[in-house]
């Protein structure tokens, strides 16, 4: 696909890692730098998730985008950490904010949000103001509960 001079290749989910490996290792392609990975949520359209990997071939001065589409019921895809180690934190960020799981990822934890955060805020069905107030900004703070719970006391 071409749009405004950018080339996008849509890859089926099961072929993603093979395609990525080919892009990096093939002597004609040489996409050695994974510049970015991000997700777009097209809720309520299915398949709702589009993963975009921006590749750069430094020796050939070229850019390419790999795209994978995932459904809302089964948002799992192969991790690209074995191909580009730099995918590690990018995939953790997508997992954190969209709830997409990467099979084969060495350390799939939340990265920006706290571990006990509920939901995936960058999904389109997550309201912009959030579902509820942040804890410890209201009652908990005023009633002195925080002091009781705190181990510092």
């Amino acid at each position, binding site marked *: 696909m071409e749009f405004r001079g950018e080339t996008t290749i849509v890859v089926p989910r099961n072929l993603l890692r093979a395609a990525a490996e080919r892009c990096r290792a093939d002597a004609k392609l040489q996409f050695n730098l994974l510049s*970015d990975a991000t997700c*777009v949520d097209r809720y309520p359209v299915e398949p709702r998730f589009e993963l*975009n990997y*921006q590749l750069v071939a430094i020796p050939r001065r070229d850019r390419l985008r790999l795209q994978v589409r995932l459904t809302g019921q089964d948002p799992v895809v192969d991790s690209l950490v074995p191909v580009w180690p730099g995918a590690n934190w990018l995939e953790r960020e997508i997992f954190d904010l969209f709830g997409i799981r990467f099979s084969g990822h060495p350390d799939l934890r939340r990265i920006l949000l706290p571990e006990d955060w509920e939901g995936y*805020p960058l999904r389109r069905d997550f309201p912009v103001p959030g579902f509820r107030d942040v804890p410890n900004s209201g009652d908990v703070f005023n009633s002195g509960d925080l002091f009781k719970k705190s181990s510092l006391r």
Partner: protein
Amino acid sequence: MTTVDTVTGAAKTMVLNMGPQHPSTHGVLRILLELDGETVVKAVPDLGYLHTGIEKSCEDKTYSQAITLTDRMDYLNPLGNNLVYCMAVEKLLGLEVPKRAQYIRVMMVELQRISSHLVWLGTHAIDLGAMSVFLYCFREREEILKIFEMFAGQRMMTSYIRIGGVALDPPAGWRQAVQKFLNMMPSRVDEYETLLTENPIWIGRTKGIGCISPEDAVALSMTGPTLRAAGVAYDNRKVFPYSSYEEFTFDVPTRTESDCYARYLIRVAEMRESLKIIKQAMERITDEGPVKADAPGIIPPQREKMKTEMEALIYHFKIFTEGFSPQPGEAFVAVESPRGELGCFVASDGSPKPLRVHFRSPSFINLQALPKLIEGQLIADVVACIGTIDIVLGEVDR
């Protein structure tokens, strides 16, 4: 706590919590360090203390409103953030920016690069114990901020670069102000070099510290001065020129040592290159000419036209209430920020608000390599390594 083989035989290591409130983490970054004596065995960065959900907030803003949010991401490079976001939206719209506006953009972004490198140099030197450099760097940065204030009315959160051009015509007397800065700056850069380049303490603290091989650096997606210090000449301004950078003559400094000292030399050399670009841009900016593209319905109309033409008034009202709707599609644009490749991905679904705005922030991705740089080094070198990656936590967490 784990057991590792130490010099004195198997012994227990200590886990030390560095940050989040630590002056040398340049914001709120927490690093869990596992130490064997003073040697770092393992390092685990913990982020998110400054997460403000900028990408989510963009979903609820029109395309023009989101510009002010980008300022607040990398607060040492607001103009660069404006530029990359506006270029992504312009690509989505297929909008051509007038040459004069492109040159103004280049000049402002290069001034911003110098100011960002000055803050980096000053704070990095303070981390490593050289107090006076900080004061000199901020003296010159002040001059740059005064120029920004002239152009945009704001010193830091400028929002000067807008979709389709820049916000305002350059103010009266801008040439003298920029020329004064250009005349002063080269000798000031020499001054920093006199203080640091051959300073034995500085060399001792930075030479041979935090090395990474070029293969590892590329594999970990590092960009910017950190990558160029490893010998890979990857600079978006040269490799994928944007905003008329192909018309300017400048060099991309690279080194091969890949240590903290090499990164320092690269950034100092980049300041000199930026001065060259600013000088050329100044010559190219004509006194007369448009600073915004001619695109009714996207660019707010001029004040006089609004009072005389019906269409202009309608467009003005439409732009500021509803916004404009690019055709469905996606665009990814990358520019060279002072820290590396700053990318912006914008997806449109044909409505006046973006479906998705994503920033490829160089600080976030370069920070990923920190454990690789510091494992096996001394704890004092952790500070030097964090400094030379040049992270801005506002951009790491967004």
